């Protein structure tokens, strides 16, 4: 780590021109804007988000999309931002704050979503079965179930070293997915109540509560007004996205409070050196169990708001790759920082997850490329005769697969050049108050 740290100073300076002391000249405008944006965490997040929106606006307009397409793109982007933001905040609590290496995020999401589904899906659903309880009961139930599964995993595993927790959580995540996939549980009933998971064919989910808003008088009026430019389906999805953003803000505030408190201080100490925390009289076992359960409950909630809001879910949505994506978002933003988790989620979704695909669509629309060669050799061979079009169409045609190469490259660059994430090294002081020397203390030495 210390060897990596020596790289940091060069990487930290955003550009040599940013060093200018006076803010008069137009040359300093960029530096001035950067300083202004960096002034508060809220602005950093909003600015990143606006930048990604702008990028996608350019993409969409270049591809000849109209306002509705743009709206639909933005809603989809925001949906994924919010989903990844909740999960990365939860993972950051585990890994960034406490150093608990949980690589079973997808499993805890699955527990949350399926518990919600079994509790709240109407009993007459086509696939899978449920109890038809009110949605809030399902959501709270899902979070509790995820927390309890977390407890079951944590009690034996937290006594072990960090790497063993990783293996246990990864294994648990796959066990959960395979259990949900099993045919035995697909149509399970007790008396007249169905608890079926639907097996590999998945389970129907309760409708989004926000959808009903558009059926009210105000809602239908709104749909009528906007209809030609923004379709009702985009509007319906955007209402749900607003709910998700509300959750993101709520969870951010909650976790900021957890972090900026004596509790968060102990978490940080456990991450740094657990024996020190114990030697100062902290019963670290309880801190780890509590924080693990809280994080798992939030992962369950994240799963419910994301996978649980699409009418239908199957075990395929909870493959380990999802956990990997969440880790990428946290690493990009810098582990240990809540704001970093938000920024990391936005950048991951915008530039690595959705960006390449959208870009590929534009290129294939704008340039009429010949059909892509079937093999990589077929794409590269014509380069000998300076013909790049086969390679280009191959790249565009397989852009979803090439995303993974891009992901790998970005990860390596980040870990090598900016191990503390894109925001650089951040100190979010773990205390409920400002720790500066109180003015009334009469010290006044250097403060």
């Amino acid at each position, binding site marked *: 780590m210390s060897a990596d740290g020596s790289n940091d100073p060069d990487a930290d300076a955003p550009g040599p021109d940013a060093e200018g002391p006076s803010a008069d000249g137009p040359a300093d405008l960029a530096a001035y804007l950067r300083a202004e944006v960096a002034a508060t965490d809220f602005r950093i997040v909003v600015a990143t988000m606006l930048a990604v929106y702008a990028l996608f606006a350019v993409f969409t307009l270049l591809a000849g999309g109209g306002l509705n397409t743009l709206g639909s793109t933005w809603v989809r982007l925001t949906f994924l931002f919010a989903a990844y933001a909740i999960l990365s905040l939860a993972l950051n609590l585990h890994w960034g704050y406490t150093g608990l290496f949980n690589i079973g995020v997808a499993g805890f999401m699955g527990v949350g979503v399926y518990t919600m589904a079994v509790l709240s899906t109407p009993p007459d659903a086509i696939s899978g079965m449920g109890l038809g309880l009110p949605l809030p009961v399902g959501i709270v139930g899902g979070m509790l179930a995820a927390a309890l599964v977390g407890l079951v995993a944590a009690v034996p595993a937290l006594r072990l070293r960090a790497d063993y927790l990783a293996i246990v959580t990864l294994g648990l995540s796959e066990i959960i997915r395979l259990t949900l996939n099993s045919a035995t549980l697909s149509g399970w009933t007790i008396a007249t109540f169905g608890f079926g998971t639907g097996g590999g064919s998945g389970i129907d989910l309760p409708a989004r509560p926000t959808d009903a808003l558009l059926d009210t008088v105000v809602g239908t009026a709104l749909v009528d007004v906007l209809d030609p430019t923004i379709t009702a389906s985009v509007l319906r999805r955007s209402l749900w996205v607003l709910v998700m953003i509300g959750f993101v803000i709520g969870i951010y505030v909650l976790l900021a409070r*957890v972090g900026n408190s*004596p509790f968060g201080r102990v978490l*940080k*100490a456990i991450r740094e050196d657990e024996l020190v925390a114990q*030697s*100062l*009289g902290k*019963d670290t076992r309880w801190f780890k169990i509590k924080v693990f359960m809280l994080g798992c409950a939030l992962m369950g909630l994240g799963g419910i708001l994301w996978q649980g809001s699409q009418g239908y879910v199957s075990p395929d949505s909870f493959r380990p790759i999802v956990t990997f994506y969440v880790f990428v978002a946290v690493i990009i933003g810098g582990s240990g920082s809540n704001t970093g988790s938000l920024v990391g989620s936005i950048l991951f979704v915008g530039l690595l997850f959705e960006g390449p695909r959208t870009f590929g669509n534009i290129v294939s629309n704008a340039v009429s490329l010949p059909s892509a060669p079937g093999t990589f050799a077929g794409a590269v061979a014509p380069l000998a005769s300076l013909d790049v079009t086969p390679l280009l169409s191959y790249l565009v045609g397989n852009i979803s697969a090439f995303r993974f190469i891009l992901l790998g490259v970005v990860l390596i660059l980040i870990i090598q050049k900016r191990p503390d994430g894109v925001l650089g090294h951040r100190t979010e002081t773990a205390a409920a108050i400002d*720790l500066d*020397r109180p003015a009334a203390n009469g010290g006044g030495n250097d403060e």
Partner: protein
Amino acid sequence: MSDAPLQVRDLKKTFGGIVAVDGASFEVEAGSLTGLIGPNGAGKSTTFNCITGAHTPDSGTVVFQGEDITGRRPDQIANRGLVRTFQIARELEEMTVLENLMLAPKGQLGEQLWRSVTPIARGEVIEQEAELRERVWETLDFFEIDHIAHDEAGTLSGGQRKLLEMARAMMTDPDLLLLDEPLAGVNPTLEEKLLDRIHELRGQGYTFLLVEHDMDVIMDNCEHVIVMHQGSVLAEGEPEVVQSDDRVIEAYLGEIDV
């Protein structure tokens, strides 16, 4: 005799086939500055780890303030007022000096998760934090490390880390402090400062058990010295007495011969 706050009886600890501590017994008197010395491999650090709960002794008892604490967890022992520092300073690197010190005090309301996040209860947490902040700054001033208060602990020099570690241990308000080689790797100026602080705190009624490799430091500063050799107590008494003990000289000279 039996009112000594720390009583160690027949302590034994083996690692595989190696006997690290072999029936060590000693006491630390209230308000004393007791030194524990011995050549390399004498079992000083293992004894320390057994007393503070980092290791569980194979046999023997550790009694602290009349209570048997043998084999308790480190946090239980620390909460009873027996607090240690480490031979190689284990500062919490990515936490600032302030955070390191704020971490230590016992009985912090905000260490309960629900109090930290619920609106009204958090008010009490904030109040307590403000009180702790006062104490933290007093401690920083006392150890003269207030100028590095906002630095991350990982950036401090070796001597500053030792000061930080002692300051952090003091923040727990201990009855007895176990210092594991607090002067190792510390330059003479800081060494002087650290010893001053130890003497001053002792004057305020704190009890110290000091493990040191450096014979001179112990002889000059402690009024009671325990010499360990090959896992058990070889000699015990006032520095002058211990210093002239033939067995002690042999143990130390023997080490040099090897």
